[in-house]
């Protein structure tokens, strides 16, 4: 076996074992202690329910994915723009930061009723919550990446007579890219959570809404099937952006491949 393959296996085996063990303990625990399906269904039951309800689950899951990605897309555009501004200008940083902190401190779930009043029940509140929750980490990360350029690196450009904008374009912005991509994989999971939260409270579609309906009918296995789908989608989104990060800013991961 080559070293590369061995390393690959070492990357894959431990998390797989952990996940299998987790479900095994859950399954066996429920059986041994005779836990009622109404309280906590076994994972095998949840999976079985998933396959039975697949055709109902998927349109809702796709709706959630849609609101997540639209909100997340907005968060990227606004987050990068604002991050660039506060990274570029210390004055803007000082002026805007307290307000940003203030907005970020509001639990996003508390905004759902407000958005329902403004936009009605449906897609819009989910998109907005997904946007608001992901916007802050992106802006802060991009801003930090730009603002923390090493003085030595600044000297390289300054000694050539480069302007502040040159500094931003040639050094600050490219240097902020690893920060940006690192924030994306965190932010996309946040967006997803935000979207589901909005659907739980105020929607007629989406996986969150499906879970609310299922629980109101006491179909607990379906609720858990929904939770499994939510978890799987969250992991998939994280993985997708982690992969993108590795692709885009390989230089920041030197020697860790």
């Amino acid at each position: 076996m080559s070293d590369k393959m061995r390393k690959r296996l070492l990357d894959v085996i431990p998390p797989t074992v952990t996940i299998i063990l987790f479900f095994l303990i859950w399954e066996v625990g429920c059986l041994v202690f005779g836990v009622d399906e109404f309280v906590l269904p076994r994972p095998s039951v949840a999976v079985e329910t998933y396959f039975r309800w697949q055709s109902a689950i998927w349109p809702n899951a796709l709706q959630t994915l849609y609101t997540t990605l639209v909100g997340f897309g907005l968060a990227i555009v606004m987050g990068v723009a604002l991050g660039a501004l506060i990274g570029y200008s210390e004055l803007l940083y000082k002026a805007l930061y307290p307000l940003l902190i203030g907005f970020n401190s509001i639990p996003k779930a508390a905004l759902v009723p407000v958005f329902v009043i403004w936009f009605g029940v449906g897609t819009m509140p989910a998109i907005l919550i997904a946007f608001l929750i992901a916007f802050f980490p992106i802006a802060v990360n991009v801003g930090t990446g730009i603002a923390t350029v090493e003085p030595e690196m600044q000297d390289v450009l300054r000694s050539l007579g480069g302007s502040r904008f040159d500094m931003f374009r040639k050094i600050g912005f490219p240097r902020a890219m690893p920060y940006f991509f690192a924030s994306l994989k965190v932010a996309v999971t946040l967006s997803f959570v935000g979207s589901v939260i909005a659907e739980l409270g105020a929607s007629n579609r989406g996986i969150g809404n499906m879970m609310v309906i299922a629980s109101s009918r006491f179909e607990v296995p379906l609720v858990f099937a929904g939770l499994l789908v939510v978890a799987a989608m969250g992991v998939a989104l994280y993985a997708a952006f982690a992969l993108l990060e590795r692709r885009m800013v390989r230089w920041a991961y030197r020697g860790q491949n």
Partner: protein
Amino acid sequence: MTMHMNTESPICVELRGVSLNYVSNGRNVHALQDVTLAIRQGEFVAIVGPSGCGKTTILKLVAGLLPPTQGQVLIDGAPVKGPQKNVGMAFQNPILLPWRTALENVLLPLEIVQPHRQEFARNRRKYEEQALHLLHTVGLEGFADKAPYELSGGMQQRVSLCRALIHQPEILLLDEPFAALDAFTREELWGVLQTLWQDRGCTVILVTHDLREAVFLASKVYVMSKRPGRLVQEASVDLPRPRTLENTFEPAFVNLVHHLYTCIGEVRA
């Protein structure tokens, strides 16, 4: 003797009674005191002195990164009022941009300095050829597309030298460029630098604490006192060029190094 040693050349860099104070962590630091020196065009000058004596400060003054508290810094007779476009600088660390390849790092000054900046997109091919040629001269043929982290410390420093020279500056400022390298690599790069300088004929100010390096490369060596930095000695190096590492074991070379060593010992005491 080469044309670079011609004492008839006009004065390129001049410091007149330059002093510098700055405040650091609430303390007033007196970095330089009454430094006066004149460097002729094409001359290779080295400045040596104990650490923290303000050697680097002189380079920053010439580069226009710092204004003097007192006195005047002149380039080609005109006072320095800010960063200069005809100056190239290399530092103790290579400070390459890690997201750019070696070639792209060398090209950076051309994207900043006029008139190249305007023509960069149009003449990219031509500039790339110049950069490749320069990389070739420093022995980095075939490494143009490597990322900095794929290069050794010595190779990175070579790239850094190329970056300092690509826009054909009149003045090259070197701030202990080889201090972080192992002895073999360092001495190899002395030769590389000597060749580059002889090819280009630019004025070089080299700041170093390595006396052998100073004597190997420079036509004139200035010794600075400890802080506040003053120029206390000036020694001409009249050894023939090109100098080789073999020369460094000859009595003339050794004696000069010993003489400087004694000077430094006195100023440190």
